[in-house]
């Protein structure tokens, strides 16, 4: 029994130790690729994926020398093709992550996630990120497209949804207006029974209408920081 307790304590210490500092790797995308981020794609979501539609416009890690492409969804989602370069969207610094869409709305939810393993228990979330969202064709329409920062836990991890499960913060086009803005969450309480926590960045394509080829919408993120402060341990983890 003592041995079990000892192992449990040791495991908890190891896992909690991982909570020090930013828990995300490559949260600033400076590797220039999606290292450690998992993009949403059919393989992860069968059969849910089929209910939610076609594969989404792909996540793009971009910089000013290699901007995002404008991806067009054509023929009811049958084809997904680059039709231009999204010069309007500049990266925040170095490399950023984003999505673009024009053409049809037929697609699943575009997102990328990192899955973290921490000790089961209660935590406070401290997080911050830079985000931009804009629709070049619907400049006056509120909530046409948004950038979601989302946290899910346990059996809700990697769920195909835009709904708030644990934590969701959305930055809409009418707030960003194509400008990078800084967002943060402080001391937001969450609880995980299994210790599995998902941090997700998602494009919310709230406008279900086709977009003419001459314009497009986009969402991008950068400098994503995610910290967990254990609650009820008596001492806050060192950072």
């Amino acid at each position, binding site marked *: 029994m003592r041995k079990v307790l000892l192992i449990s304590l040791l495991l908890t210490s190891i896992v909690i130790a991982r909570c020090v500092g930013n828990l995300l790797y490559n949260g600033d995308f400076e590797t220039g*690729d999606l*290292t450690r981020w998992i993009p949403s794609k059919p393989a992860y979501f069968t059969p849910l994926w089929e209910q939610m539609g076609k594969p989404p416009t792909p996540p793009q890690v971009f910089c000013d*020398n*290699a901007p995002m492409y404008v991806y067009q969804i054509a023929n009811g989602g049958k084809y997904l*093709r*680059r*039709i231009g370069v999204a010069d309007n969207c500049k990266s925040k610094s170095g490399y950023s992550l984003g999505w673009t869409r024009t053409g049809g709305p037929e697609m699943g939810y575009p997102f990328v996630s990192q899955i973290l393993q921490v000790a089961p228990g209660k935590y406070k979330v401290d997080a911050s990120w830079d985000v931009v969202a804009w629709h070049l064709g619907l400049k006056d329409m509120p909530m046409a497209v948004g950038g979601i920062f989302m946290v899910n836990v346990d059996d809700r991890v990697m769920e195909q949804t835009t709904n708030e499960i644990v934590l969701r913060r959305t930055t809409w086009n009418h707030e960003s207006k194509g400008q990078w803005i800084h967002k943060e969450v402080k001391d937001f309480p969450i609880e995980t029974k299994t210790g599995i926590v998902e941090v997700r960045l998602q494009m919310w394509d709230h406008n279900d209408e086709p977009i003419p080829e001459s314009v497009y919408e986009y969402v991008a993120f950068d400098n994503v920081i995610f910290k967990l402060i254990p609650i009820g341990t008596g001492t806050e983890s060192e950072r």
Partner: protein
Amino acid sequence: MKMILTIVFAITLTSLLVGVSFGNLLVNGDFETGDLTGWTEGTPETTNMFDGPQGVPCQIFSNKAPMSVYEIYEDPLYGDRHFRRIALATKVRAKEGYSAGWAKTGSWREGYPWIQQIIKVNPGKYLLNASWDCVSENLFFPKHDGGPAGAIFVVYADEMITSYIIDEEHPAPPTLCRKTTWSMESKGNWITKSITDFPIETKTGHIAVRLWFSDHDHQYSINPPAFMYVAFDNVSVTLKPVETSVR
């Protein structure tokens, strides 16, 4: 009755398969869908004995949405290997509409990048006729005197369709047909290539048509912003059955 149905089914199936042997057997050989519809990209998941780390990705590009130059680099701290887009390869023009290609710089360490289609025909002997446009260049050697980039058109049959063999001397002809356009020949200009009446045989009826980006000289890393590239367009493959009077 059951026997008649079986015969009718067999005749229908044969007709369908033989029917496939006429005209271009490739789907989206001109890449005008704007994506890789019909093609499968070579990855460790799709290839037996994939050799070396994954190569740079195939890109379907147009003049309005040109290829990106992918840099292969290894993180000096963790040793992780990354691909990152460092620039747009605006120098590379599509042949027409959309073309398919690869553009890379940085480390030479990568597996062979390729895309392919697997065609199902009747087992038997055929004469292969094919044509394609291709371009290749290594801008690290602007005089075309080193580090050749190759645009390889290759056809496999039967058990070789998911193989990773590129050696032209592989002892399985005539199931292998390979034609390479090196950068010394193309020098950055699109050229048209063709194969006429090349004999192939398939025991299973499975034939793979593969477009391959070969970084032949595995000793040069390329310093950005220079890069090498290969691209294809208008790929057409037909098979003419031989030694049968039915077709």
